[in-house]
């Protein structure tokens, strides 16, 4: 729900943007709070050095455009995400971040543009087809399957389960192979539960988990689909600082193992400190794409980010 809300909101901002005069007044406000922003950015500690060499980019987005009726929510968005990196997608409310996510993962069909994943054109595919190609996502508001246990949530995720065909699950001999595969799968599930330190919750209903635990569960579940690239939609929203730190550690550890991340986030501080590349969206367009250092030096980003903030 909230994604659509934001997309439509993004659209209205985008139409406003057609009259540049509207920006002027806000810019003055932006200047006054500029000190806050530099302060925020100054806290950067361990930005991974951006590798500018031509690394393989599994996810490429080109000329993406989405209209809702007459409202343009996303316009001419192009970027790519390189293998083994942590890329941040930031922008004020309604900038079109979540819409972009939904366009990439097939939840929405783009009006124009292409999304390529591992060299294959996945534009307009069904979400499950995209997920099965190795592009996993989490949701802005954690969407755990409430009346299923944590274990069931986890066991659901792995790809290529033979027991997902009805006859195999029911027929006497074939069911043996299902049991065999599930037993194998179970080991991996427990490994991941241990990794995210939610193993003590295994038998709980997912609906009984706290907000932060749900975020962990969602990420764990996405990880079990064995993705190449993970798209995390505001993974830190509503998460307390301790858990936030833990989540970040998990993400960094996974990145070192070769996973690729694209993270949508509101918290600039967090993105600047942890991502090697940052894409800034504003009013449905890409405003700036570069290393955190480049971003924080960009006048237009500072202006737009603060000026456009609701």
């Amino acid at each position, binding site marked *: 729900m909230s994604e659509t809300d934001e997309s439509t909101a993004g659209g209205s901002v985008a139409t406003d943007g057609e009259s540049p005069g509207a920006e002027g007044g806000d810019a003055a406000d932006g200047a006054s709070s500029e000190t806050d922003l530099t302060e925020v950015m100054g806290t950067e500690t361990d930005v991974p050095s951006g590798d500018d060499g031509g690394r393989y980019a599994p996810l490429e987005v080109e000329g993406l455009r989405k209209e809702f009726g007459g409202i343009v929510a996303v316009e001419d968005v192009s970027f790519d995400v390189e293998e083994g990196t942590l890329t941040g997608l930031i922008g004020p409310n309604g900038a079109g971040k979540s819409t972009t996510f939904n366009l990439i993962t097939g939840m929405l069909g783009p009006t124009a543009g292409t999304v390529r994943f591992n060299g294959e054109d996945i534009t307009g595919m069904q*979400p499950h087809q995209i997920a099965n190609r190795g592009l996993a996502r989490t949701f802005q508001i954690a969407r755990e399957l409430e009346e299923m*246990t944590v274990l069931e949530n986890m066991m659901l995720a792995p790809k290529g389960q033979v027991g997902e065909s*009805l006859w195999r699950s029911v027929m006497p001999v074939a069911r043996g192979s299902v049991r065999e595969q599930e037993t194998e799968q179970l080991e991996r599930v427990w490994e991941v539960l241990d990794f995210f330190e939610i193993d003590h919750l295994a038998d709980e209903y997912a609906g009984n988990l706290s907000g932060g635990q749900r975020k962990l569960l969602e990420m764990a579940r996405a990880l079990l689909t064995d993705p190449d690239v993970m798209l995390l939609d505001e993974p830190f929203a509503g998460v307390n600082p301790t858990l936030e730190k833990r989540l970040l550690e998990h993400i960094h550890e996974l990145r070192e193992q070769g996973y690729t991340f694209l993270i949508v986030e509101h918290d600039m501080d967090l993105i600047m400190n942890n991502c090697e590349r940052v894409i800034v969206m504003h009013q449905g367009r890409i405003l700036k794409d570069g290393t955190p250092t480049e971003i924080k030096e960009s006048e237009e980003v500072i202006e737009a980010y603060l000026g456009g903030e609701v």
Partner: protein
Amino acid sequence: MSASDVRERFAGLFERDVTLVLAVLGAIYLAYLLAGVAFGYGLRGQLNSMANLTFYIGVFGMLALALNLHWGYTGLFNIGIVGFMGIGIYVTALLSKPPVAEGGAAQVGGFGLPLFVGVIGGVLAAGLFGLLVALPALRLQADYLAIVTVAFSEIVRFTMMSRTFQTFTVPDTIDLWVFTFDPTADTVGLGGGGGLILNYADPLEALLRGLFLWEPYLAFVALVQRTLIPNNPKPVIDGLVYGIVLLIGVGLFYLLLSRTGKSPFGRVLKAIREDEDVANALGKDTDRFKLTAFVLGAALMGLGGIFWYSSRGSITPPSFRPNITFFVWIALIIGGAGSNTGSFLGGAIFAGVLYEGPRYFKNLVETAFELGDAPRNFGEAMAGFASLDPMPFVLYTLDSVSQLRLVIMGVVLIWLMHNRPEGMLGHRKETASTVDLRRPGTDGASGKAAAADGGDER
């Protein structure tokens, strides 16, 4: 699957479900037996009463189980159950009825195929219509699917009644490219408002013959005649044995559906019920799963309809009004959506207490208190209050208990919604997996203890 884990699973099952089911069934049967004793039933009367009770427990159990696949597992709001039941039995009748005989009572004939072919045809047809309904309705939200299904079941009933489909004349030979059929039937059809006379072989006889048990069965009937019931015992025993066949049918439904539920397939169905977008984002083709589940459930409802009506002498369209759909829903809600054991228990309790119970209660009260005649209308019933005599009203209420049954069901439903919306067993964790999901390498209680300790450390 080794012998030991078969035994372990069996023991585990016995601990929980079997005992519960037997206890509930035992209580219902005991109540009916005692009522029979109070009525002064002889052996024959008691057996008839048991057969009747078993019949309704069987059919409602089956239908509630089938509905549980749709609603309890997948969250598909199907209120067209009776439509699938109707298709099942009508197609069976059409395929298995003998051709019209000179001077016979039946105006409409059938293709005269063996009954088992008719049953298979009926189940397949119900499944096929399930597919037809589900295909356009898949993209609809729950409440719109409900409208489509209830409309569908009414279309089925009106089709049964329509004059257009009342009779068809079948040509003597049908040429279909290379195949040539030479059907025995000349007049077939749905019989219109008059319905169809089910003049095919007796289903029980056909079944027992198929299992080569017909001769032993006749010998058994003869034995009963010599020892227990001297006067024509066959209808009584037929009823009882048909009840047992129904219970075996319920067992097979249960086996099929609990295997379906406790599997990766069932896990995806549950995920669709909880949040279809998530299932989709995890790479599950949710449309395919919904379609499969809907078709399987519809086919089972067709089979339930066949079990219900095939041993009746005839079927007429008014039997397939939506109230049966809602009876099945009440049964499922009592038992607890999401639990297969609960669904069967719900079916049994609905049949024993709400469906057949009020009539027995009325007879019981009448036998116990030797009451006079009931007033003929509501006015006379209320007139008693003028002289502060509530008896006419009580008598009138008792007399109209079959009509009041629906009111009682409504009251029970409201009470349940307020106090226990999850039903008897809906709260239970019935983990959707073919294997035990405890941490591998630990067994039994120690596994749980270890997990709990792990939790405490943090």
